[in-house]
């Protein structure tokens, strides 16, 4: 493979979602893909910024597009976090349709001698995995098929909506080919594209927990849920004890980032995809991985 992307990790991937960052980098390296981190990138504003100022949200996104264009105008921007992806995508789309916004952004960026002319495309990690790298390439490179592992693919919202770029925004399937190429099995379920509650988990926890409970209930029977967003990951993995208590049934389930699963199939060790950083990794999954991957017990 001979692809280069400008990489926008975003803030979560430098902290609470570090395993998403490291496993993405490790998988790309294994597949021969070069990621160049955008120099001096800034926070996209997540879902907080639109609740404060929509122009500020556009400005934060625009600054990143301008930096990426200055660094490498011909490489797409790869974004693993769905909130970052949507915020950058939004500026990409809205400045084309709204000349007044474009003018304001030019003024704001001008303060730092930055400009947007023909910015590189904003792409979600999942889009690139499916359409550029493709499940076929993944299959060719799979050295340790994860045979017998049952996976519930969880897409969440913001990589699918409101912009339907690479998948059906209500009934997504893009992860299925990738998971099968890893040798694992995809379970059918209803909650793949339903909301996890996002930041309501902090500001309106009782409401958000109801949503996560429905997702965890529906995922029963799978060995793991696989995610492509740090916010989804945190909500699904971080509150399982309390939610199980509320539900009156044990809803503990492993939650992995997609590139962590892919990394294992590509022959990377659990430590290289940072499985030790996940908040929810059940003893049952650990046992399964040890036998599937013929690992030593202390590796997982």
């Amino acid at each position: 493979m001979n692809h280069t992307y400008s990489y926008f990790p975003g803030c979560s991937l430098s902290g609470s979602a570090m395993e998403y960052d490291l496993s993405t980098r490790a998988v790309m390296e294994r597949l021969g893909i070069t990621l160049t981190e955008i120099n001096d990138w800034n926070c996209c504003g997540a879902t907080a910024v639109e609740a404060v100022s929509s122009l500020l949200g556009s400005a934060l996104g625009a600054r990143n597009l301008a930096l990426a264009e200055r660094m490498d105008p011909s490489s797409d921007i790869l974004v693993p976090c769905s909130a970052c992806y949507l915020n950058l995508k939004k500026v990409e789309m809205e400045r084309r349709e709204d000349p007044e916004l474009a003018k304001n952004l030019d003024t704001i960026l001008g303060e730092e001698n930055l400009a947007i002319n023909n910015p590189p495309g904003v792409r979600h990690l999942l889009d690139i995995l499916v359409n550029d790298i493709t499940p076929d390439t993944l299959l060719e490179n799979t050295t340790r098929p994860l045979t017998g592992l049952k996976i519930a693919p969880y897409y969440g919202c913001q990589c699918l909506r409101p912009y339907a770029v690479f998948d059906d925004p209500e009934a997504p399937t893009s992860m299925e080919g990738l998971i099968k190429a890893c040798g694992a099995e995809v379970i059918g379920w209803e909650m793949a594209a339903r909301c996890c509650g996002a930041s309501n988990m902090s500001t309106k926890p009782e409401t958000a927990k109801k949503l996560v409970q429905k997702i965890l209930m529906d995922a029963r029977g799978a060995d793991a849920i696989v995610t492509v967003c740090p916010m989804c990951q945190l909500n699904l993995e971080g509150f399982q004890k309390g939610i199980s208590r509320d539900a009156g049934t044990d809803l503990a389930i492993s939650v992995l980032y997609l590139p962590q699963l892919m990394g294992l199939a590509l022959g990377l060790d659990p430590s290289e995809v940072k499985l030790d950083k996940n908040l929810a990794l059940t003893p049952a999954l650990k046992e399964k991985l040890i036998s599937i991957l013929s690992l030593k017990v202390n590796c997982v």
Partner: protein
Amino acid sequence: MDEMIKLKEMLNPCIQCGTCTASCPNEVDMDLVPRKLWRMVLMDRNEAIFDSQTFTLCSSCYLCTLRCPRGLPLTAAMAKLKAIAAKSDLAKYRKSTRFYKSFMESVRRHGRVREGEFMALYFLSMKNPLLPLSFVSLGMQMMRKNKVAFELPAKPGTGNLDRLFKKVAEIEEGL
């Protein structure tokens, strides 16, 4: 409020079909369902709107925006109401608005959000000694994994976005 006039224009094509309500994952906890909220906007019932918790419950899943038969940007409309509540610092919305403001304050200071600092700023702004307790369980899990550290708020450093934030405010005030 100028912003409410703009919002009213934006929502003017609403036909009150209720697809938004039917699509909303958080509708069960809303005192005014989304369809009714839009009606209140169109009827200038600002008091009813800012008496309701509805817009603070929006988790930006974009299902209503995707499905609206009139193609209205309903998630953005919810965000606009959040932004108005944040600007007015209305007491009943502070648990949400100060959360968002604290996040953005950390971004202004360093260009990137520092998760530990953001939460510390939030707790300080709410002045509620019990609030941090509700985050202890997650905080402990994260610290055990060396993912976040307890961080005292730090002054703006290199990489701060003061100029960008200032310019945005200037443009917004000029509108």
